[in-house]
């Protein structure tokens, strides 16, 4: 089911949580809403589900305007961070709940509901656990029951609110891979919310990066990492450094020294140079590169991290070099960027 979100706005008691957000979700797509807390990602998900009402704008399910439909009418599968299982019901009764509450004319027989619940439990790899109660399951198992329950109603779209947020790191990684496989098998249009960039990039076909109630960028993992549309996206995804520089007539200056970078079409004035630690290489020549004083050297599992103090100012630059390269621990060092992004200073201030 295609879902179109058109210019929606949501206010909570006059406080805007989403401003003018538009997004097209294609049928069968697995899409991640990624952002820090307070960015409006959960609000957007709840608006699609119908758990909140729009202040303005439209949400279309296919060609049908769902903006004013109730949650029940929208037929969406929703999975909550803390599972929200009915603990007084067995696992099988939880899964079959959506079918049992249907109006009599559309309700499958008891035997049919039982069969469907068993089928779904098999799909989420929990066969034979139908008679247990949620309290007798682990966190990862509970979340899979919650997913089976949401799938039981044959939802038009599957919505997951930080589905792995309450689980430990190992279970998270397992479930992530498993959810990807499940999605490929069942082909449900799926939207999930996360604040974990790794999860978003690994799992989703497209990632929607949000901040302050707005969409910053929509794109594949490659797009948002390699071509971030804004300083916010650059610094939110992956490790990043920002250097204060100055642009004059298309040339970039660091403390009045020109950097050896191609000409930019940014207007004259203060700007910021965004760099990833692993996109910097050591340069023999200080002219045209970024010189600094080494302040710390650290070894991580696969790399060596060097911290540089730039030009006696408070700007620090982190460089990631291959671990094999041994390195002296002090003195001056000049680096040259292989890849970078340049943003106007006022854009950066908005983002931070």
């Amino acid at each position, binding site marked *: 089911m295609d879902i179109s979100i058109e210019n929606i706005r949501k206010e909570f008691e006059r406080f805007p949580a989403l401003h003018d957000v538009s997004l097209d979700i294609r049928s069968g797509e697995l899409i991640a809403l990624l952002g820090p807390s307070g960015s409006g990602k959960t609000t957007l998900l709840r608006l699609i589900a119908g758990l909140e009402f729009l202040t303005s704008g439209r949400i279309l399910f296919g060609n049908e305007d769902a903006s004013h439909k109730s949650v*029940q009418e929208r037929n969406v599968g*929703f999975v909550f961070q803390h599972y929200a299982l*009915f*603990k*007084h019901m067995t696992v099988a009764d939880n899964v079959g*709940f959506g079918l049992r509450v249907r109006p009599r004319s559309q309700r499958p027989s008891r035997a049919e509901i039982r069969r469907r619940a068993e089928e779904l439990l098999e799909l989420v790899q929990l066969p034979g656990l139908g008679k247990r*109660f949620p*309290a007798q399951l682990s966190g990862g198992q509970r979340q899979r029951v919650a997913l089976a329950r949401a799938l039981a109603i044959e939802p038009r779209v599957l919505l997951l609110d930080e589905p792995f947020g309450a689980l430990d790191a190992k279970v998270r990684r397992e479930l992530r891979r498993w959810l990807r496989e499940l999605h490929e098998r069942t082909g449900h249009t799926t939207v999930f919310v996360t604040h974990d960039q790794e999860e978003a990039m690994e799992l989703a076909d497209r990632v929607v990066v949000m901040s302050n109630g707005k969409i910053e960028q929509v794109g594949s993992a490659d797009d948002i990492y390699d071509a971030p549309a804004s300083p916010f996206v650059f610094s939110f995804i992956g490790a990043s450094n920002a250097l204060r520089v100055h642009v004059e007539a298309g040339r970039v200056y660091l403390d009045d020294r020109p950097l050896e970078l191609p000409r930019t079409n940014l207007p004259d004035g203060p700007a910021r140079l965004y760099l990833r630690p692993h996109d910097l290489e050591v340069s023999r020549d200080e002219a045209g590169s970024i010189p600094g004083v080494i302040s710390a050297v650290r070894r991580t599992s696969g790399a060596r991290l060097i911290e540089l103090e730039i030009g006696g100012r408070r700007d620090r630059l982190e460089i990631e070099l291959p671990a094999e390269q041994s390195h002296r621990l002090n003195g001056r060092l000049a680096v040259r960027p292989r890849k970078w992004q340049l943003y106007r200073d006022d854009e950066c201030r908005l983002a931070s």
Partner: protein
Amino acid sequence: MAHAAGVIFRQPSVIPGFGLALGFTLIYLSAIVLIPLLALVVKSAGLGWSDFWRLATDARTLAALRLSFGAALVAAMINAVFGLLLAWVLVRYRFPGRRLIDAFIDLPFALPTAVAGIALTALYAPNGWVGQFLAPLGLKVAYTPLGVIVALTFVSLPFIVRTVEPVLAEIDRELEEASATLGATRLQTVSKVVLPSLLPALMTGFALALARAVGEYGSVIFIAGNIPYVSEIAPLLIVIRLEEFNYGAATAVAAVMLAISFSMLLLINLIQAWSRRRFGHGA
């Protein structure tokens, strides 16, 4: 999880003071609860079995016991419904005067029950504020078993509201939202999701209300009219026997009350333990 292999008296623990705490608990419970009750049992045992049986199955005693337990049961059931409704309104809605109403709930706790009894009698007497409208309908409240139920409903109300309120406030909104996304109507959500989660608290409140109503004396004796065989409650019968210096008869009634009350509370506790085992901790 239940212990599979017998009862373990003491689990090794890093928290000190188990012996002291258990000892104190037992001494305190004995002094305050067990010894007085034991005295009651001993005293009634002094009667001899046939005397005891004769006094306990006396028609007037049976009528009083039936009224006491029956009226208490009805009152607790009425409050289970309306107390739940009150708790729901107080927890779920925000409206002016909510805190005031919330404070009113505790009044039956604080008011001397005799005052409540007199007030209720004045209201429900055939010429009272409420009674004058009920009288033409042929409904007599004061000086009938109905009056007993009214008084017991009054005194036992706070027990249900106060036990259900915190549990209702704790119920995760997400449960109701999950139910709605699965297509359940509001009515289905309340009856299949919310009420079952409230049931253990409701049962605790019911047990407390019932226990309180069975033992109630002060408010009832004013409104009941205390007609033997009709509107005479068991606690009053005990007082009457005491005033006749018929201690044997008084303890016989008391012992029967004790036995019935204890079995009822035990039964309710067993049901709760069963539901806890089934639905996991704290459900």
